[in-house]
């Protein structure tokens, strides 16, 4: 072989080697790796190593997301994968199999219900927004944006008033500016974005948005110490055990475990990385533990503008969740040692009493907690002198009936009578099954409970004292004895 022939042969060999390199690189594409891992985890039902197209009926646009996200839970029965797919909510590039490219244009990162993008995801026309006045309750996106959970308006007003930054408790500011074109009398029409103390405190991301400067020292401190710490739906939660949650709609409807670990079937979601929902699922059956990720996790010190975690919480995650009964866990996690509570507060979940309008707002800007809080003990238990107020289910498609069907626990039908709040919101889960006899269906567990009534008893209550603290005087649960003083 001459020198040139050797060179030619080496060139050919080089060409073959680079072709082999190209082939090897193609076989190592991450999406192939995910499918291989899926097959390794499910030897009983292996899938071909090929892109997995899905063409949702609502969009008609093919997406390949489930090639990598194979095994992910369907988000909810009302959002079936075959109809919705992924892109309609999440955005992104459904045809891309490269993670970076596929995810570059995701709405709100992992969470399309983040309030900054919710109008383009959950709030798309014909979804959870865009209904006329007769179905205004279906405009969940606008309702939430105006609710206290998103604005924190009452809290801001109270703190600013306490520190002398404003002359009264009237709400002027919200976490983000918000407006309501048709407020009820005495409700705010609009709230401005919470001010900063000085011009130089405004972070670059918020410059140019017309945020006011108050020249009062409390505003920046309050913002940075409390509002940015995750106390409203706009802000991500602190990544700490018990406190992990998502933002926007998902803050409540997407359940997190206490340790913030994913336990579903999508192999691409790290199982040892705190900060993921327990499963890729939305629910309206929200257990107390989810509310707990924000509420009752400790106290704010107004003096230092710092949050102090409760020191008495057991370690998050297992073994607590596995070995304690629901009620025991509740006792350990929820109630602070000095806090009184009644049996129903302990046994029911928050959403068994607190209604949709209370939790998500009624479509108007609530300026204080009293605007939002409607439920009282007497809503379900009545008073000594009166039975609970009730109203009939009048027509198919009315709100209470839809809520009942969405929950799926209680069989409600047209003609049934249910308890109703003073603002006319029907509690679909508390039915009057016979004159003067009320049964409640628990929204999370589906259990049914007979509702004990104050009507006709010798309870020494006064007509104008109906808040829970008055009832606690006699009906508080005694932890040491494990009983209620007066059942």
């Amino acid at each position, binding site marked *: 072989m001459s020198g040139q022939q050797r060179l030619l042969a080496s*060139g050919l060999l*080089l*060409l073959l080697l680079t*072709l082999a*390199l*190209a082939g090897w690189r*193609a076989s190592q594409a991450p999406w192939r790796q995910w499918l291989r891992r899926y097959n390794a985890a499910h030897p009983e039902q292996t899938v071909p190593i090929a892109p997995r197209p899905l063409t949702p009926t609502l969009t008609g646009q093919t997406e390949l997301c489930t090639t990598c996200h194979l095994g992910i839970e369907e988000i909810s029965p009302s959002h079936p994968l075959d109809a919705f797919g992924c892109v309609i909510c999440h955005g992104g590039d459904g*045809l891309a199999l490269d993670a970076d*490219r596929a995810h570059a244009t995701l709405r709100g990162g992992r969470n399309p219900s983040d309030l900054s993008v919710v109008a383009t995801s959950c709030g798309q026309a014909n979804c959870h927004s865009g209904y006329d006045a007769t179905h205004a309750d279906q405009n969940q996106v606008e309702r939430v944006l105006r609710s206290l959970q998103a604005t924190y308006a009452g809290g801001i007003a109270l703190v600013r008033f306490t520190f002398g930054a404003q002359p009264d408790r009237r709400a002027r500011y919200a976490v983000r500016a918000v407006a309501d074109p048709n407020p009820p009398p005495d409700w705010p029409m609009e709230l401005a974005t919470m001010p900063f103390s000085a011009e130089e405190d405004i972070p670059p991301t918020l410059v140019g948005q017309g945020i006011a400067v108050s020249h009062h020292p409390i505003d920046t401190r309050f913002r940075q110490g409390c509002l940015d710490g995750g106390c409203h739906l706009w802000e991500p939660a602190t990544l700490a055990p018990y406190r992990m949650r998502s933002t926007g709609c998902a803050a409540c409807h997407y359940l997190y475990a206490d340790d913030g670990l994913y336990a579903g079937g999508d192999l691409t979601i790290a199982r040892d990385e705190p900060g993921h929902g327990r499963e890729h699922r939305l629910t309206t059956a929200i257990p107390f533990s989810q509310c707990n990720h924000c509420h009752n996790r400790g106290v704010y010190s107004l003096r230092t503008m710092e949050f102090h975690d409760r020191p008495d919480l057991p370690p998050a995650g297992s073994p607590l969740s596995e070995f304690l009964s629901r009620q025991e866990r509740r006792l350990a996690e929820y109630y602070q040692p000095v806090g009184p509570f009644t049996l129903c507060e302990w046994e029911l979940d928050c959403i068994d009493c607190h209604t949709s309008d209370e939790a998500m707002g009624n479509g108007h800007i609530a300026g204080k907690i009293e605007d939002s809080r409607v439920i009282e003990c007497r809503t379900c238990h009545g008073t000594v002198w009166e039975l609970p107020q009730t109203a009939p289910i009048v027509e198919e498609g009315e709100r209470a009936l839809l809520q009942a069907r969405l929950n799926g626990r209680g069989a409600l039908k047209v003609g049934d009578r249910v308890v109703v709040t003073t603002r006319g919101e029907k509690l679909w889960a508390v039915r009057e099954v016979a004159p003067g006899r009320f049964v409640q269906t628990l929204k999370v567990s589906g259990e049914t409970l007979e509702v004990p009534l104050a009507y006709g008893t010798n309870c020494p209550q006064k007509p104008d004292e109906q808040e829970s603290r008055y009832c606690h005087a006699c009906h508080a649960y005694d932890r040491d004895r494990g009983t209620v003083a007066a059942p």
Partner: protein
Amino acid sequence: MASQSANQRSGESAKRRGNESAQRLDASFRPRRRLWRRHQSLLYALHPDRLPAASLRFTYTFGLGGLAFLAALIAIGTGVLLAFYYVPTPDQAHASVVLIEDVVAWGSLVRALHYWSAQVAVVAATLHMARVVFTGAYARPRRFNWLIGLGLLVLLLLWDFSGYVLRWDEGAYWALLVGAALIQQIPFVGPSLYLALVGDTTVGAAALLRFSVWHIIGLTLVVGFGVAYHLFRLQVDGGISRPPRPPGQPRLLASKDDLIRVEAIATLIAVSGLIALAALAPAPLGPAADLTQPPADVRAPWIFLWVQRLLRWIDPVWAGVALPALLLLFLAALPWFDAHARAGLWFHPRQRAAHTAFLLLALALVALSLWEALS
């Protein structure tokens, strides 16, 4: 009998004559068995039986022109494959590129090869031009071919840019907007040229279709004929330039086989390098163009980064039209300014002025591009 036979003979000879002419006619009409006629083919002209050994010297040409040619061929081959999947409509263009990239078997490799061979073609052609300057190879009689080469470089850049636009991702769309706006700045013909290229009052479906046709058909044809002429002219001008043979020294010749072997080895190495590059570095692709959202950070394709830097400083007419035109004019006129150049030797002192001017200009463009890329 005799006369009869004489008649016969004359008749036969007439017939024979007739046959001969028929045969000649036949011969001239006979279908060609050989499509490639040795002495009338450009390919043969480029591969003569004997050629000066100096033309084969690697350290003289570094094979840059050949590399640019080879890379362009690979870009055409892979481009044909891509064209089977590419859809030149605004709502489908990016999606079809994503499909090629992620779903089509070997699509990512083919697209990366297409991308990298195009970039290599631009780099190699530019370096080839520098080599021609630094060896004085544009000296008479090669001045005209220098102009052809310069035109080819401009066409190559347009070819590259039009391909970049076809991605229809964020960067490409905004680069097209900027490019189209610059065209409008050209005095007198700007608005008509804009309309001819963009095909509409706004940059959209018509522009994408036109750019795809220019990229896939128009420029390919023009560059193809241009390159053929460039090579033909090279032969007319006496082949690859080389230093004059000192008197008394024997003429050193190489054979066609040597040439083909060298070409084969260089091709294998270059193709391997391109495949390795394509396998390790996929062709870039940004998120789909969102016509409603101005992107946060738009970069021109790397070949025009220097224009983008200039646009940040000076008037668009100067940065995008006048200065590039002056640059081209300077390059075109270089062989005439550098009238004393003699082909064949690297960095001949006689050419110092031209070399210095060219080098300073090249450094300025590189510096501007780097500045823009790193800022």
